[in-house]
């Protein structure tokens, strides 16, 4: 037994080493009082250039470092003046004049001017990155934008190619791509004509409540408060964002008090934390909608009674409560809650008898639906619930399970029979969803209009295409709202789409954290109002 003393020593030494490292930690569990520590999966960030960023995490950052001419109030989610004090539209509906607010400065100290605003919008159009289409809808292109967007004194003039609904332009101006940049600063960082693109990936040059202090992709970022923010100084001096890809890890950190906000929680964590008084769950909605759609290349899906039968054979509320566990709310129209003109009513519910009767009326005997589903757990659960309730109504559902990317490819090529999908709006105006769900200018295979969900389902919405196009030109906001309401009703009653849910957001925050707003369906998160 001569070796035992050695083992004992080694064990004791090991334990001592562990304790030496561990002992002081308990003292530092809390986050710094002037810093908001957020954990989130932020690996979606592609760019921090407002002209290029088009992902949720990047837009959250930009919302706190830049402002637009028109802003969305984070607490009410209503539109309000941003860097522009007032605006008006000319008689012809094609010329907009924005009067800039006086006395606002960028974080560099430079004044926010109409010139800077014009340059910023021109820049976004000229660099033509992914979100540029939001601005290009108004007839702007790299060639004409210098004459369409002009500045003079404190006035910015925007000319558009058609008399659009003014709300359409204002809504689009709240998007991240329309952020106003400190032109003088950005111009000095031009590399090979990128108009500062590379520099903006690790620096901010806006008028927002915070400035970007450090950014490490897939690791995190730090924002620092700037004094003199026009909406009132940020309450907390620093924002510390930490990339935490694993939800269970985030939950531990939140319960431990090492972070203040956890943004990537799943239903499992939410359930587990329900009893913890140190933590609260903040609920609101996101913009994504979940829908079923049916390819009308299959004649069955042109049968109105059959489509109706399926609408009554979906367990909307049951799925939202049990399978999705609060990550969605039932929602049955193509505009998400929070959007101009969105319909929140729920005309359909699970009614097997009604579905059976409608199926009998349809004259389709023993139909089979081949439903394409991506191979993730929650989608599979939803698909199986549909399989079950459709089955009760006499409709056989065969599940075709595959990779998300493969299924999307087949969907875009109109090769599916039926599919379970989600759609996220591209910008905060109803036209973003209306134009894709309810418009299809050319239903031929050759048109290859994959951007239109209606086309992907070989669905010709008939008069709705024109009605949706008219809604984007309607200058009376009240009339515009009514037009979208009518469109959504017609769409949900006649189209081969069954919108089922809208995304719900669950944010875990420490009990002391107040006033964190995620931006709902229409905007990005606001950090500057948060206290703790």
């Amino acid at each position: 037994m001569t070796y035992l003393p050695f083992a004992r020593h080694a064990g004791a030494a090991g334990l001592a080493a562990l304790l030496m490292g561990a002992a002081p930690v308990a003292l530092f569990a809390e986050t710094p009082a002037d810093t908001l520590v957020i954990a989130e999966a932020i690996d979606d960030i592609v760019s921090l250039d407002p002209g290029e960023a088009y992902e949720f995490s990047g837009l959250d950052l930009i919302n706190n470092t830049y402002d637009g001419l028109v802003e969305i109030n984070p607490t009410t989610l209503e539109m309000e003046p941003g860097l522009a004090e007032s605006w008006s539209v000319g008689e012809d509906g094609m010329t907009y004049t924005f009067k800039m607010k006086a006395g606002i400065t960028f974080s560099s100290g430079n004044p926010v001017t109409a010139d800077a605003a014009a340059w910023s919008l021109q820049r976004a159009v000229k660099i033509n990155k992914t979100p540029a289409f939001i601005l290009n809808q108004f007839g702007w292109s790299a060639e004409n934008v210098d004459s369409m967007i002009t500045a003079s004194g404190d006035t910015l003039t925007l000319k558009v190619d058609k008399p659009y609904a003014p709300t359409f332009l204002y809504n689009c101006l709240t998007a991240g791509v329309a952020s106003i940049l400190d032109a003088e600063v950005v111009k000095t960082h031009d590399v090979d004509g990128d108009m500062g693109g590379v520099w903006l990936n690790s620096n901010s040059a806006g008028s927002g409540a915070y400035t970007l202090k450090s950014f490490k992709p897939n690791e995190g970022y730090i924002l620092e408060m700037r004094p003199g923010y026009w909406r009132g100084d940020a309450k907390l001096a620093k924002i510390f964002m930490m990339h935490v890809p694993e939800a269970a890890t985030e939950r531990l950190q939140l319960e431990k008090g090492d972070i203040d906000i956890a943004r990537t929680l799943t239903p499992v964590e939410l359930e587990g934390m329900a009893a913890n008084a140190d933590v609260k769950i903040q609920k609101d909605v996101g913009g994504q909608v979940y829908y079923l759609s049916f390819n009308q290349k299959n004649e069955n899906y042109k049968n109105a009674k059959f489509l109706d039968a399926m609408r009554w054979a979906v367990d909307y509320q049951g799925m939202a409560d049990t399978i999705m566990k609060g990550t969605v709310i039932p929602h049955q129209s193509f505009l998400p809650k929070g959007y101009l003109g969105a319909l929140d009513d729920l005309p359909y519910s699970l009614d097997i008898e009604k579905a059976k009767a409608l199926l009998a009326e349809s004259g389709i005997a023993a139909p089979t639906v081949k439903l394409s589903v991506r191979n993730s757990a929650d989608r599979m659960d939803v698909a199986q619930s549909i399989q079950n309730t459709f089955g009760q109504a006499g409709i056989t559902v065969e599940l075709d399970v595959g990779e998300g990317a493969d299924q999307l490819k087949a969907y875009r090529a109109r090769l599916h029979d039926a599919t379970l999908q989600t759609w996220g709006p591209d910008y905060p105006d109803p036209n973003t969803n209306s134009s894709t769900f309810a418009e299809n200018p050319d239903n031929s295979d050759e048109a290859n209009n994959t951007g239109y969900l209606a086309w992907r389902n070989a669905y010709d919405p008939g008069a709705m295409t024109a009605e949706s196009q008219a809604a984007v030109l309607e200058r009376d906001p009240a009339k515009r709202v009514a037009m979208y309401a009518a469109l959504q009703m017609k769409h949900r009653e006649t189209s081969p789409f069954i919108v089922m849910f809208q995304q719900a957001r669950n944010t875990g925050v420490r009990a002391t954290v107040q006033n964190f707003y995620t931006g709902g369906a229409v905007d990005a998160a606001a950090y500057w109002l948060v206290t703790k």
Partner: protein
Amino acid sequence: MADTDLNDAAPSRAGRLAKQVGGTVFTLLITFIGLLAVPFFISRVVPTDPVMSILGARATQAQIDATRTALGLDRPMWEQFGIYVWNALQGDLGTSIRTKAPVIDEIARYFPATLELSTIATIIGMLVGVPAGILAATKPGSLFDQVVRLVGLMGYSMPVFWLGLMGLLIFYGQLGWVGGPGRLDAAYDMMMQFEVEAYTGMILIDTALNGRWDIFQNALSHIILPAALLGYLSMAYISRMTRSFMMNELGQEYITTARVKGMPEVRVIWVHALKNVMVPLITVVALSYSFLLEGAVLTETIFAWPGLGRYITDALLVADMPAVLGGTIVVGAVYIGINMFSDLLYRLVDPRAK
């Protein structure tokens, strides 16, 4: 052993050395070209399109074409490979498609985090695994042996994902003995970024060099759990291998001779037998070390550790090929480095290998 004809003139010492060096350089060159070529061509034949992953589903054809040209993807594949090798030789591993930062800079950020973690893990694995294996081998079938084997088996078979979460739950969540995920607490992370001169990117070393023991302690409390977890996995492997090497060695005649001569058992085991076990053990430790350098993806994910394994995996998922290639090359180079280092160690411990 190759017989040498005594009549042949033995090659001069310098000639032999030159031949050896030449051979090594040639092998290195071939290995590196292979290292560059295999992932490069695989990356070009997989169906994932990097352009689509940058631009998203809404991009217009003009945007797609412009990006394709900017990335050089419209050129012939051989030309692309040639350009890549030429740039790599000059230390330019390209620009990450996703983050638009130079790959070499990103690796310089991620690699030290991994190196720090896997070095500590390997030290833990070695310090525990080698003695445990040796002790188990001296009393095969004993309770100690059974325990070592069981613990080793658990290290092999339990999913690291589960172990990591359990470890966090117990030692961080419940007991509060160790720091949580990430390399530092938020407060220390900010100090580290703005107040500490970073020489190596390894926080423990940088803070020690700067005399910032407060940050050092916090970093240590964060690294100890993932390092212990990875150390456990490597310990499982090392202890099993040590045990079997040792068993083999203890059955040799020279051991019997030593024992018959009345040599103390401690000396027989820890001096005579251990010396001979060292050579294969070096290989085992080196292999386990190099495995940790790129194979710790799951641990890095759970512990929010910004390491190289996770960097390569994340990049792979979005078809960010410059990043994948760059990471692969670094990992490959480290493999080669560790191998050469263990070769060197052989020569030190085994005179016959000279």
